[in-house]
């Protein structure tokens, strides 16, 4: 069996095990698991509003999961995507509100570029600390997430506040067209898909992509053949930050039309989960992001119709990840083979 088929088989088995464990939880609180899962599915797809909500939820997850996966290709564990989404969002909001001297098409561009630059700069800090001084990027990115959230929270309730009770900014002057009203699904989904395809192409078909993958597999080898592993590491983290920034920009321009306090809570971490489950395989990651978006969107419907708390979905996802990280689980025949080889 080929390597990718094996990977796929493992993902499917893991998914079934996770859903099985979820079923046990549902039974433990006295509900019918089958009813709950059907309600979950209906909650995600039944009707224009629900399908649109699923798609709107999928858009940022697609970008944040790709952001985590890109950093992982170079061996970085970037938990900081969430902070980058927040900072990208606030930058896009600032430019979208204040730079009205630009003609509209340029204003769109400025919003996206601004979000990307600020987010990439934010990602540069932990990346450089890791590359040059060996400071654990897991720790720094997690703690910097909180700092980023508080920075945006300060801006949106202070200098950039629209004066409403719920902290938010004034509306931005450019928005992305919402094509499935009343849901907030918007043209950002096309941008997200395009960007992710571009990143996949870049990783597998260009010089730079090759460098990233080399550094991720073996940094010592990279340095030996003349690829600066530090530079590539920092570059991939900054690219990861840019993707996070784009996600924030799409949320602001497409979904809300203004910057809302705490608007992106969980976007980064959910994207990370999607990427972790498939071991940051760039091809599988978007599908896993879609699967998680379906689970998230359906969770609300499940809670309303069956009384199963929607936190169950997060529990299932977490179990999913924990089992998925176990590299040598579910490799039935290969382990048996190994034993035979050892005995021989």
């Amino acid at each position, binding site marked *: 069996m080929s390597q990718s088929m094996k990977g796929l088989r493992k993902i499917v088995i893991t998914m079934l095990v996770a859903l099985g464990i979820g079923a046990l*939880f549902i039974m433990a*609180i006295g509900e019918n698991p089958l009813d709950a899962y059907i309600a979950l599915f209906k909650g995600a797809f039944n009707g224009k509003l629900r399908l649109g909500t699923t798609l709107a939820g999928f858009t940022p997850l697609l970008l944040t999961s790709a952001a985590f996966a890109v950093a992982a290709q170079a061996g970085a*564990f970037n*938990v900081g995507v969430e902070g980058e989404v927040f900072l990208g969002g606030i930058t896009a909001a600032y430019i979208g509100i204040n730079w009205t001297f630009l003609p509209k098409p340029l204003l769109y561009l400025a919003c996206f570029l601004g979000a990307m630059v600020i987010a990439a700069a934010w990602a540069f800090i932990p990346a450089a*600390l890791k590359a040059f*001084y*060996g*400071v*654990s990027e*897991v*720790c*720094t990115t*997690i*703690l*910097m997430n*909180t*700092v980023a959230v*508080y*920075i945006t*929270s*300060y801006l949106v*309730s*202070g200098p950039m506040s629209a004066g409403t009770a719920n902290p938010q900014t004034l509306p931005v002057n450019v928005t992305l067209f919402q094509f499935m009203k009343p849901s907030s699904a918007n043209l950002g989904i096309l941008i997200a898909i395009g960007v992710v395809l571009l990143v996949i192409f870049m990783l597998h078909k260009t010089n730079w992509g090759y460098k990233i993958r080399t550094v991720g597999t073996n940094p010592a080898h990279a340095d030996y053949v003349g690829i600066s592993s530090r530079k590539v590491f920092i570059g991939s983290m900054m690219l990861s930050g840019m993707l996070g920034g784009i996600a924030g920009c799409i949320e602001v321009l497409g979904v809300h039309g203004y910057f809302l306090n705490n608007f992106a809570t969980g976007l980064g*971490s959910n994207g*990370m*989960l999607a990427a*972790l489950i498939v071991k940051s395989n760039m091809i599988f990651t978007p599908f896993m992001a879609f699967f998680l978006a379906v689970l998230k969107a359906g969770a609300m419907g499940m809670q309303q119709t069956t009384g199963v*708390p929607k*936190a*169950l*979905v*997060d*529990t299932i*996802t*977490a*179990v999913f*990840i*924990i089992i998925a*990280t*176990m*590299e*040598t*689980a579910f490799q039935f025949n290969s382990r048996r083979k190994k034993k035979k080889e050892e005995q021989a």
Partner: protein
Amino acid sequence: MSTIMENIDKIFNMSLIYATFRSATPIIFAALCAAITQQANIINIGTEGIMLVGAFTAVSVSYFTGSWILGVIAAMLAGAMIAMIMAVGHIRYNSEICAIGMGINMLAIAITKFLLKAVFDTNGGFSSPEIDPIPRVHLVFLNNVPIIKDLLNDWSITEWFAIVLIVILQFFFYKTVWGLRLRAVGQFPEAAKTAGIKVNAVKYQAMLISGLIGGLAGAHLSLGYSTQFIENMTNNRGFMGVAAMYFGGANPVLTAVGCLLFGFSDSVGARLQAYGIPSQFVLMMPYLVTVTVLSISMIAKLSANTKRQSALNVN
């Protein structure tokens, strides 16, 4: 700013010492939880999750049994259970430790949320007068000693225990055979194996004890530091603990010093809030200080290391 200067004696006074220690204690427990596995070269990213599960277990057991001791014990066992999931995944099934650690953290947030809804039928948080908190120690003989009285009286039991635990772990790591084996496993597993040490057994033991301490950290947070459970109440304290552990190089005493630094910034920030500093800056302070201190300490360590190496290269 002028008001801050005028009130400087209200910000920096004797009660700041206890305030610092009080906000540092949960992080100290978390850092010790991370330190013990770090000695075996396992970075315990799951500290946050272990703590959160411990906090929830402590509150619910204390609520249903009316006994804080049972709450603390149950929290420690729950922490150990979560740690063992990580241990089995990492040691037996070859999980990447950061990945499974983040999985554990997500699981902890989700499952406590789920149980909060399923058991107590509330969202957001749970508090009740029927939760039995960890008692505070009132030392009667200090009643007549002026300054010490305010400084040392009415600490909760677990706050005293944090100090005891630092000493115990320091002793275990550096003065016992088990500690030597633990460090050997962390620094050079092949050599440890050659010396007849069961490497995986030692790793499992480290994870188990780490889980017990992490559970205690959670119990202290929800029964000692406060008397309630709130969704995600650990609020990245576990990660601050891991950062402090890096700062102290997994040495319990140095690690605790790092935690005190974070506790200090937390308490000073809380006092500054009264003088017109925006709350967001105050809330962000401990995180900012943690990142900065962690970076500076790692940079210093690295440059010391290179200096030592270049000295070796001279001849």
